[in-house]
C-alpha cells in the first residue's frame, strides 16, 4: 500500500507483465490485486489489446489499463505488454486522469508516453527479478512516482452527451467525451467509462446496462456516430410476450372457450331434457 504524507493509503497500484522466457508468463510484479474485477469484461474486450476500464461508486474508483506495449520482447519475439491496475478514493485521483489521457493519446497516435514511462521504471533486469521474487515489492511506490511525473492531461471542454453512450475511439470528440466522463468518475460521481475492443454494436453492451451506474463505452472501428444507449424496461413492467408465448396463450384461450361451450351445451341439453321429460 502506498501512503500519503499523513500515512493514509490513497492510491494502490499493481503492474502485470511477463518475462522473456517461456516459463515467465504474465503475472503481477509484487502483490496481485485481491479482486480480479476486470475479468467480468472478458467477453467484451481482448485484454492483450488496448483496454481501459474505470469504475466509480461515488467514493472509490478502480481503474484498469492494459495492452501497453513494452519495448521488451519474449522468447519468440513478440511484444510484451504492461497492465496497470489502480484504485483509490475520489480525493486523490489527480494523476490518474493524466494517465488515462496519455494512454488514449498513445493508442490513437504514435506516441509511447505511458509505455516509455513504464519501461524506464521497469526495465528487463528489474522485471525478471520481480517476477522471480514476488515478495520484493516496491512496485506500488514506483508506479505512483511515475504517475506524478506524467504531463498533466489535456483540458477537455464540457459538452452535452447522453447519460449512457457508445462511440468509436477513432473520433476525437468521442475521446474527449470519454475523458470528461473519466474526470467526473474520478471526482466522485458514480459511473463507468470503458474502452472495450470487442464491442461491435449497441446490443453487445446491453447486459452492462443492468448496472444502474452511467455507462460510457468507447469501441473500436464502429460507426462514427454517437449512440445513446437506451435503458431497458424499468423493473416491474412485464416484457411483451414472445411469439411462442402469444401462440401458446391463444391456444390455451381457444381450449378454454371450447370447454365453456361444451359445458353450456351440456347444461342446456340437460335442462332441455328435464323440461321435455316433464
Amino acid at each position, binding site marked *: 500500500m502506498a501512503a500519503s504524507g499523513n500515512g493514509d493509503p490513497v492510491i494502490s497500484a499493481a503492474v*502485470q507483465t*511477463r518475462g*522473456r*522466457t*517461456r*516459463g*515467465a*508468463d*504474465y*503475472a*503481477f510484479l509484487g502483490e*496481485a*490485486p485481491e479482486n*480480479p474485477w*476486470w*475479468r467480468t469484461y*472478458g*467477453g*467484451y474486450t*481482448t*485484454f*492483450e*489489446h488496448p483496454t481501459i476500464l474505470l469504475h466509480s461508486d461515488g467514493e472509490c474508483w478502480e481503474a484498469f489499463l*492494459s495492452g501497453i506495449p513494452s519495448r521488451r*520482447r*519474449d*522468447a*519468440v*519475439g*513478440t*511484444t*510484451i*505488454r504492461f*497492465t496497470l491496475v489502480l484504485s483509490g478514493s475520489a480525493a486523490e485521483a489527480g494523476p490518474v486522469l493524466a494517465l488515462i489521457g496519455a494512454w488514449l493519446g498513445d493508442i490513437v497516435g504514435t506516441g509511447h508516453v505511458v509505455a516509455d514511462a513504464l519501461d524506464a521504471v521497469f526495465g528487463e533486469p528489474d522485471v*525478471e527479478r520481480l517476477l*522471480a521474487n*514476488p515478495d520484493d515489492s516496491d512496485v506500488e511506490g514506483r508506479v505512483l512516482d511515475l504517475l506524478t511525473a506524467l504531463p498533466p492531461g489535456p483540458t477537455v471542454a464540457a459538452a452535452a452527451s447522453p447519460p449512457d453512450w457508445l462511440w468509436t475511439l477513432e473520433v476525437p470528440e468521442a475521446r474527449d467525451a470519454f475523458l470528461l466522463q473519466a474526470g467526473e468518475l474520478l471526482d466522485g460521481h458514480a459511473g463507468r467509462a470503458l474502452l472495450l*475492443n*470487442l*464491442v*461491435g*454494436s449497441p446490443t*453487445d453492451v446491453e447486459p452492462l446496462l443492468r448496472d444502474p451506474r452511467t455507462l460510457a463505452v468507447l469501441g473500436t472501428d464502429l460507426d462514427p456516430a454517437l449512440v445513446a444507449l437506451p435503458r431497458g424496461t424499468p423493473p416491474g413492467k412485464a416484457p411483451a410476450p414472445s411469439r411462442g408465448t402469444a*401462440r401458446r396463450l391463444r391456444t390455451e384461450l381457444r381450449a378454454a372457450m371450447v370447454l365453456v361451450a361444451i359445458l353450456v351445451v351440456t347444461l342446456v341439453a340437460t335442462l332441455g331434457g328435464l323440461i321435455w321429460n316433464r
Partner: protein
Amino acid sequence: MTDTSRLVYRIGMVGPSRVGKTSLITALLRGGQHLLEGTPVAMKAIGSSTQKRLGQHRRDLEGSLLAGKFRPGALGGTQEKFLFHLLLDPGVPDAGIELQLLDYPGGWFDPVTRPPGADWEECEHFLEQSSVLIVPIDAAVLMEATSATHLRVMPSILATTQVGDVVRSWLTERKRRPDEPGLLMLCPVKCESYFDDNGGDRDDSEELLTWVRRLYHDVIDAVPGEAPHVRTLYCPVDTIGCVEITGAEWTPEPGDPATLAFSAEYGVRPPGRQAIKGADDVLMALCRHLVGARQRVEEAVATEKGRTATTAERYAERHEGFFLDIWYVLNGERRYRREAAEDVRGAAVEADKRVTALTEIIEDLASRRPGGRVRQW
C-alpha cells in the same frame, strides 16, 4: 448468449506459454469456414466478441508478415482466458452445433509457473468437460535440436510433464464416461519447414513424427490403459504456412545458465499470404468424432430397445445431455420437426431440409480421407 437447447461441443487446448494455442484455435476456425464454403452450412461466430477476436488475430498476423520477414511482434501472449463461441449453422434456429474452444495463458496450466490469482479452476473444469483435447506442439523445438544439451532441455521448454499431467487427468474423467467417445489430438505447429506439401522443399515429416512419439510417449501410451475408447490422432498444422525457418538459437537463461531458451527466426515465403494447412484434417476428425458419438447412442438404443424405449433419455441424464443432443441433432432432428410443424408447413419442410443438410455435411466431412500428414494411434 448460449441457447440451452443447442448441442455444445467443447474442445480444450493444452500447451505451455508461447507454444501456439491461440494461433491454432484461430487457424482451425478459419479453416472450418473455408471447408464449409459452398455448402448450406456455415461456421459462424456467435456474438461480436468471437468475430472481432478472430479479426484482431488476423490483422496482427497480416501485420507480422509484411516486409518479407516474419516479425511476430503483435502476436503476443494471452493474458486472460477467452472462450471462442462458434456455431455450425444450418440456418435453422436451435438446430446447429455450438463449438466452444477455451484459450488461456499457457503459464496457467503449470502449477509451478501459475501466477497467484489465475483463473485456472474454471479452465480445469472446462477441460474436464471437453470431449476433445488438442495438444499443440512446437515442432521447431523438436527439429532444431542438434546437441545433447538441447535434447536435455527440450521437455522443460515443451512442458511435457505438465502436458502429461493434464492429459492424464482428462483421461481419468473419460474413464468415468466410457460410453462417451473421446478424442486426443497431438498437433505439431510451426512445422511449415518440415513438410513439402505447403510450399516447402524439404520433407522431414518422418523425423518430426519420431520426435513427437519419443517426447510424448507417456501421453500416447497412457491412453489404451486409462481410457481405451479414446482415439489418439497426430495432426500437424501450419497455422501460418507461408514462413520458413531461417535460424534457431539456443541461449543460456540469464538466471540459470544450466537451462537454455529456444528462439527461431522465420523468413516469409512469397507471396506472403497465410496458407493454413492441416486444419481441415483436425475438423474432419472432429466430425468423425461426432458421428461416432451418434452411432454409439444408436447402437445402445437398438440393443436396449427390447427392455425399454427410453435408453437415450437415460443416457442423456447420465451424460448431461451430450449423447441425446448428438442423437437429436445428427438424426435429422425429429424433435425440431415437431416444433416446426406448429409453424407454416412450407417453412417446416425447408427447415427440415437444412437440418438434414447439416447431418449430411458432417457425415460427408467425416467420411473424407484424412490428408497424408495424419496418423492414428
